[in-house]
């Protein structure tokens, strides 16, 4: 099994995630796109683990998942508290701070 297709897929997913962050306005969707980027990273890590024949990469992927879980909790808590105050989860609406 070659590694290149996996890595290409990972790069592709990472980029799609990044585009999502740039074009979506719904804060939750933006955040899901960040999750997609992390998932793409995990794919790369797992693939590299196979390339090098070590489990370190898989361990790293596991840690990324842990981090993602914690990040999701904090992020969603922040988004919910903003929603409650503004009745909107559009990231564009939160733009009082500028210039």
């Amino acid at each position, binding site marked *: 099994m070659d590694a290149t297709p996996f890595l290409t897929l990972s790069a592709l997913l990472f980029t799609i995630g*990044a585009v999502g*962050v*740039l*074009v979506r*306005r719904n804060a939750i969707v*933006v955040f899901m796109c960040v999750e997609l980027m992390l998932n793409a990273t995990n794919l790369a890590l797992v693939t590299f683990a196979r390339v090098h024949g070590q489990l370190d990469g898989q361990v790293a992927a596991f840690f990324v998942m842990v981090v993602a879980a914690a990040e999701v909790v904090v992020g969603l808590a922040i988004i919910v508290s903003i929603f409650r105050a503004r009745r909107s989860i559009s*990231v*564009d609406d*939160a*733009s*009082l*701070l*500028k*210039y």
Partner: protein
Amino acid sequence: MTEVLPADGVFGLSWLLVAVPAISAVVLLVGGRRTDRWGHLLGTAAPAFAFVLGVVLFVALLGRGEQERRVGQQLWTWFEVGGLRADFGLLLDPLSALFVLLITGVGSLIHVYSIGYMAHDARRRRFFGYLNLFIAAMLMLVLADNYLALFLGWEGVGLASYLLIGFWQHKNSAAVAAKKAFVVNRVGDMGMVLAIMLMFATFGSVTFEGVAAGIEDASGATQTALGLLLLLGACGKSAQVPLQSWLLDAMEGPTPVSALIHAATMVTAGVYLVVRSGFVYETTEVASTAVVLVGLVTLVVGAIIGCAKDDIKKVLAGSTMSQIGYMMLAAGLGPAGYAFAIFHLITHGFFKANLFLGAGSVMHSMHDDVDMRVYGGLSRLMPVTFVTFAMGYLAIIGFPGFAGFWSKDKVIEAAFADNIWIGIATILAAGVTAFYMTRLMLMTFLGDKRWKSDVHPHESPATMTIPLVVLAVASVLGGVLILGGWIGHFLEPSVGPEEHHDLPIPVLALTAIVTLTVAVGVFIAWRTYGTKEVPVTAPRGSVLTRAARADLYGDALNEAVLMRPGQWTTRWLVWFDNRGLDGGVNGLAALIGGTSGQVRRAQTGYVRSYALAMLGGALLVVVSLLAVTLA
């Protein structure tokens, strides 16, 4: 240059010179209102103490052999990391000793004067605090044994000058002037910083000794760069072209400040720097020529500005620029001119402080009006001010026997020996100096009263007149320093032996030419301002006699040949000063400000734009990494 000896005996006290005014400044500034009652006394005592100590040290220095007149005192190691070491050290040598005397002497007198001048100002105590801060910083500047500590004093005097120019905060013009002075000085300071960096990088040392030891072996480019960078610093501090524009505005400060900082001491720091760095300029033709050119241009520009102004302090400020131009020019001439530069610096310190304080005294009685067109006929009402001012006047135009005569003459001689055209320019400038100073004199003290209705001129109190008298005496007698070439000889340990020069014409003849030029300048001024009504209104034609008509004819010719081109040049120069150079500085500021406004718009407040910038940045970073490899 001779070796530096460690400080012993009384020289161990030299740190007190800096410390006492500094402590006094701290007490006054931190002490708050509690010190209001006696603050001015403490503030005056501190420089007076420093002056006494300075005299003691000076005498002690004279008492030593010529080879032992450079005394160094290491206070502490400022920082030391790896090969980079900066000690905090003082150096007392003939050069710095003379400066100490000038700064503390003139400084003490001006403090005394300020007691009277600022008597009605509620913030007098703070004013004295700032003045003491200035004295401490200025002494630090001249006593430092390395460029870094010198730079410390350099910034300190800049800060004090900034605070003092803007002292009358209620005037918006004062705040603007203070800011302008600060910014223009920063440009010069950049030169200093880069020069010091270059020294670190090249010689691994910033002491005068270390740089002097290494400069010979440095590459030509380094020598030139060092010289030019130091010159940039000197230009900023000494208000030399192209960084001269702040000095005229700085006159917004209280008059004692103009006298002390913007005439007698701080603005001469650039000259000190060039003389002190003589070892650099001796290795590089380009940089030393640049110094001469800067001096020459400023000398002419300053003199012409002096003719164009009606504000008494601005005339004096223009004259200061011009006189410092003389010093700079002399300093740029190398060993032939160092001693004369310093000599002129000292005499100028006396008579210019005298003139400024005299102007302050006049303003004091004229309700702070600075327009000479509403003065006139003050000589009888303010006899002490008039007589002392006259001494200063005679000194600055170079009336034979007065201090300025000796010192300016020496600079002109040195310039003449170097290049005949430069010499001629300096002589002409001396004539112009005589013209505008006479004009000032006539408009202020002689002629008719042109006062506004509510003004009642009166003589100033003793605290103000006594310093005037002392300085007037110094202006008359300052020339003694040159007797027997004493000053050149005395400065030898610091700046090396004086070079003798050959003049194309006999010295006496040159002196005669200079004196004649001065006389012509005085005469023209007298014809223009002494014999006619001064205000801008045109002379009335009805009372003109035949002879007067002839005069008129003479005047017309005079005007066509001399005055009009002169006025054009003046106008053009003033315009250029306002639009061209200031415009350059302002334009740059506007450009940066405009860019700022534009870039600021990029901060849209939208998270998604920020994320876009980050992705773009990531692309940039990775591409730049790949590009380096592929290249």
